[in-house]
Every structure is written in C-alpha cells, then in structure tokens.
C-alpha cells in the first residue's frame, strides 16, 4: 500500500490521529506524514474532518430524514445544476445521485420534524425539475460511517494470558 493510501485509511479510521501517531504507525518520519496529509487535503481527496455522533447519547437530538427525490431534466438543466441548488441549504447533510427508483438521495437534519417537513415542502419540492419527494424519518441509528453504535465494548479477555 502506498503512503497516501495508508495515511488515508488511517485518517478514515480516526481523523484525530496525530501526525506523530501517523508517522509511528506507517514508519514515515513526521515531516513526511505531515506533508502527505497536507497533500491529501490540497488535492481535495480529504474534504474535511468530522465527529461521527451518536445523537441518541446527546441531550438535543436533531431530527434526521432520508429524502428520495425524482427529477425530470430539460435541455438546459443537468443533475449537477439541481444538486448545486439543493446542496447549498444548511439542512442538507449529504446529497448523492443514485441509480434505481429515484434520482437523488438526500440526508436532511433539523431541530424538529416540523422543520424537516417545512424544508422539504417549501425549499426542495418547489424546485421546478423535482417531480416527487419521499421522506423517511430516521428512527434510530445502528451504524454510521463505518462505526457501529453499541456500548458492548468491554474486553472480556483474560487480563494476562500465555
């Protein structure tokens, strides 16, 4: 595995690894590790760093919804044009063009169900190319971004073994 791939995999595992830790694990020196991280950022491979939050453990749990969008394109409008328009709203956590029964998969987050509903009905649905929206409210999250949400992480191995 080349150095960039190795660093990228480690950052995906835990974006809070220090440069020193990345260097220790990969055998690079710290300058090389730091330069590789900067390169990944500069090239737009790494777009940002965020915590994966289990909102059920937090006092003010936001409402999240998965929204399916169907669109009809005309000669002047592309998928990219529609995506650019929708992606600018702060309520949109992710937006993907997908294959299958609908065109866009949208992750929406707001403080209340009412806000999510209003956002979909007042901001998204009126976009002329959008022909249909289907909103699925997220009821519970068991795994997000590769991380399983459970509390059963006790190490039950013997503390000292041969």
């Amino acid at each position, binding site marked *: *595995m080349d150095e960039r791939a190795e660093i990228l995999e*480690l950052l995906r595992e*835990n974006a809070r*690894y220090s440069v020193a*830790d990345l*260097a*220790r*694990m*990969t*055998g690079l020196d710290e300058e090389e590790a730091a330069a590789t991280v900067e390169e990944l950022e500069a090239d737009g491979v790494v777009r940002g760093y965020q915590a994966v939050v289990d909102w059920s453990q937090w006092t003010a749990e936001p409402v999240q919804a998965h929204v399916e969008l169907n669109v009809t394109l005309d000669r002047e409008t592309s998928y990219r044009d529609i995506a650019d328009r929708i992606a600018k709203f702060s309520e949109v956590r992710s937006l993907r063009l997908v294959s299958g029964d609908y065109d866009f998969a949208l992750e929406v987050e707001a403080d209340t169900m009412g806000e999510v509903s209003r956002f979909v009905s007042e901001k998204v649905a009126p976009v002329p190319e959008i022909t249909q929206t289907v909103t699925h409210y997220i009821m519970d999250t068991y795994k997000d971004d590769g991380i399983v949400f459970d509390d059963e992480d006790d*190490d039950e*191995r*013997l*503390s*000292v*073994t*041969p």
Partner: protein
Amino acid sequence: MSRGEERGEERGDEREARSPLQPSDRVTSVPPSGIRRFFELAEEMDDVISLGVGEPDFSAPWAAREAAIASLEQGRTSYTANRGTRELREEIAAHVTKYGQEYDPDEEILVTAGASEAIDAAFRALVNPGDTVAIAEPAYVSYEPGVRFAGGDPLSVPTRAEDEFVLTPEVLYEHGADEADLLVYCYPNNPTGATMDREEITAVAEFCIENDVGVLADEIYAALTYSGDHASIATVDGMRERTVVFNGFSKAYAMTGLRLGYAMAPAEVIKAMNRVHQYTMLSAPTTAQYAAVEALRSCDDEVAEMRRQYDRRRNFVLSRFEEMGIDCFEATGAFYVFPESPWPDAGEFAEALLQEEGVAVVPGDAFGAGGAGHLRASYATGLGELREAMARIERFVD
C-alpha cells in the same frame, strides 16, 4: 510379627498419611505458571490496561461465525471423525501449500482442540520416560510442563538477545541439545516476536539431521509474519520425515475461544498422536470445524486486514519504546514486542508498573531462560489503549 503383617501396617500408615486424591508427583513437580501472579494482581485492580494478553482483540471473521451458527441450526452437534472432518483436513492441506507444505489429508493431518492439544498429544505420543526434549526459550509456557507430564526431561536452550532471539546451531550445541531426542520451538515467537528466515531455519535443520533430533515446530503465528514469508523447517530437505508442525485458527483467524488447531506430520506420527487424541478428546469441537472450513475458504481478506492492523500497532509500539530510550529489537512476527526491562529485575519492574500506573506487561522470565531482563508487551489491543499504555510507561520510567 510376620513379614506380611509388617507390610500391612506399612500400607495402613501410608493410607493415613496420604489422601487417595493426592495430586500425582508428576503434576506437583510442575510449578505454577509464571504469569499466574500477574494475572491475579491485574484482576484485582481497576483501570488496568493490559498488554499481557496473548490473543487477538478482533473477533473471528463474520463468515466463519456464520458458518458455525449455520452448523448449529442444521443440528450438526455430533462427534466428527477423530482426525477431524475430511472437508476441513482437505482445506488445511490446500491452505498450507502457501508455506510450501504438502500433507495428505487422510493420513498426515490431525485436527485438535487448539494447537495446545496437538502439542500435548505429540509429547505424549513421542516422548518416552527419560527422553530429553530441548526447548528453545523464551517459549510459550506450556512446553515444559507438557514434556514433564509426558515423563520427559525438558532441556532449556536459551536464545540470545544478541542473536535477535533466533535459534542457532551454536546455542543448541552450547546447551547440549545434540543429545536431545526432540527439539520444540515456536517461530514467529511468543514471547519475543522474533522470526526465523529460510537460511536460519536451514542451519537448525542441518543440526537436527546431523544429531538425529526430531522437531516439533509450533507455527501458530505463521500468518502473522511482517517481513518476508514464513519459513517452515518441515520444507527443508530431509526434515519433513522428522518434523511435526503445529498450526491453528486461534491467532490468524482470531478464533481462540473456538479451540481449533491441527498437527501435520508423517503418517506414523499422526497415527500415534491420534491414538492419544481419540482416547482423550475424541474429536475437536464440531461447530468450530465448520467455522474453520469457512475461514480457510473465504476469509483471506480479513486475515490480511488484521495483519495490517497489527503491523501498524507494532510500528507504533516499537517507535514509542525507541522514543523512551528503551532497547527493543524489531519484532517481525506474532503480536508481541520484547523490550529490555528498564530495571535489572523485570519482575519488580512489571509489578511496580502494574501497581503504580495500571499497565500489565509480563516479565520475560515467565517464559523461561533467555527471557530474563525483558518484558513481553502484546499489541493485540486497540491503538487508543496502546497509546495510553505507552504514555503511562513513559511517565513511569521518566
């Protein structure tokens, strides 16, 4: 008083002095494991980060677990053939060709309840009372008791830190192993993390052929080799007929609790080992055998991923010891490093470290001669805990 009455009185005296359930001399002659004290100490304490664990922190690959579950759902809960299911023996035979090993699944492979059982069966099948079994140390703690339980005489052959804990003909001659009947060793090594390359293995093979010594090669960590390919002594010319190879699923596939290992050897040896096995174990755990078949068939990617994770942790731990100024040769296999103890007495250091900083490492002399003055630290623990453990060790030695 007649002679017969005298004997009767003697027997009566013995009965009073000795409980009928008195442990045998053979068992009592074996001291408790050197790690027991640490285990007990660590168990009593809270907030201990244990680097004393000799098993993976991963779970077995899901496909293998699914196969185990499916076998239960299908009611496959009977004994299997003593030697293990034919399906599994065939998969093992195919799998070990990656190490250049060729064994007949019908006659030359025995599936056991962990590699530990295979090792015990080999001792009992091959060792006569009074036979000498040379043990390359530091070593897995069960070899010496196993030899004693079988009535043999263990002979310690300490490998040297300056040789990077590799077994050499010189050290074998130095400790009289040329007179031994058998030699048992483990590479990649628990506890040092040392590996032996083909040239080094060949030198030991030549010693064994020259001195007519049989070899018990514990290769349980073969899949966890970080530099170069694993070299098996059984693949050196003239060694196959004098070698028993042990391997298993505990380390590479993180299946310690499923208790499944195997031995490979010439047909006559496997036949003898199977005689011990069939009267003690009957057959290895059936559920685990189904899991193992699936593990061999479809879990190479998971094994590769676990090895990659261990390798990163190994680099991390070695680097941290280096930053602390603690000498630690570069372990190239298994999931242990074996740094020099910062204090002259590694046992005292390990105990103080445990009590003051809550980090459990095992003193090297628990693994026999050659381990004195060292510590075994396992990196089969998540990086977050490793980072904290190393920070605590650094604070302690400063």
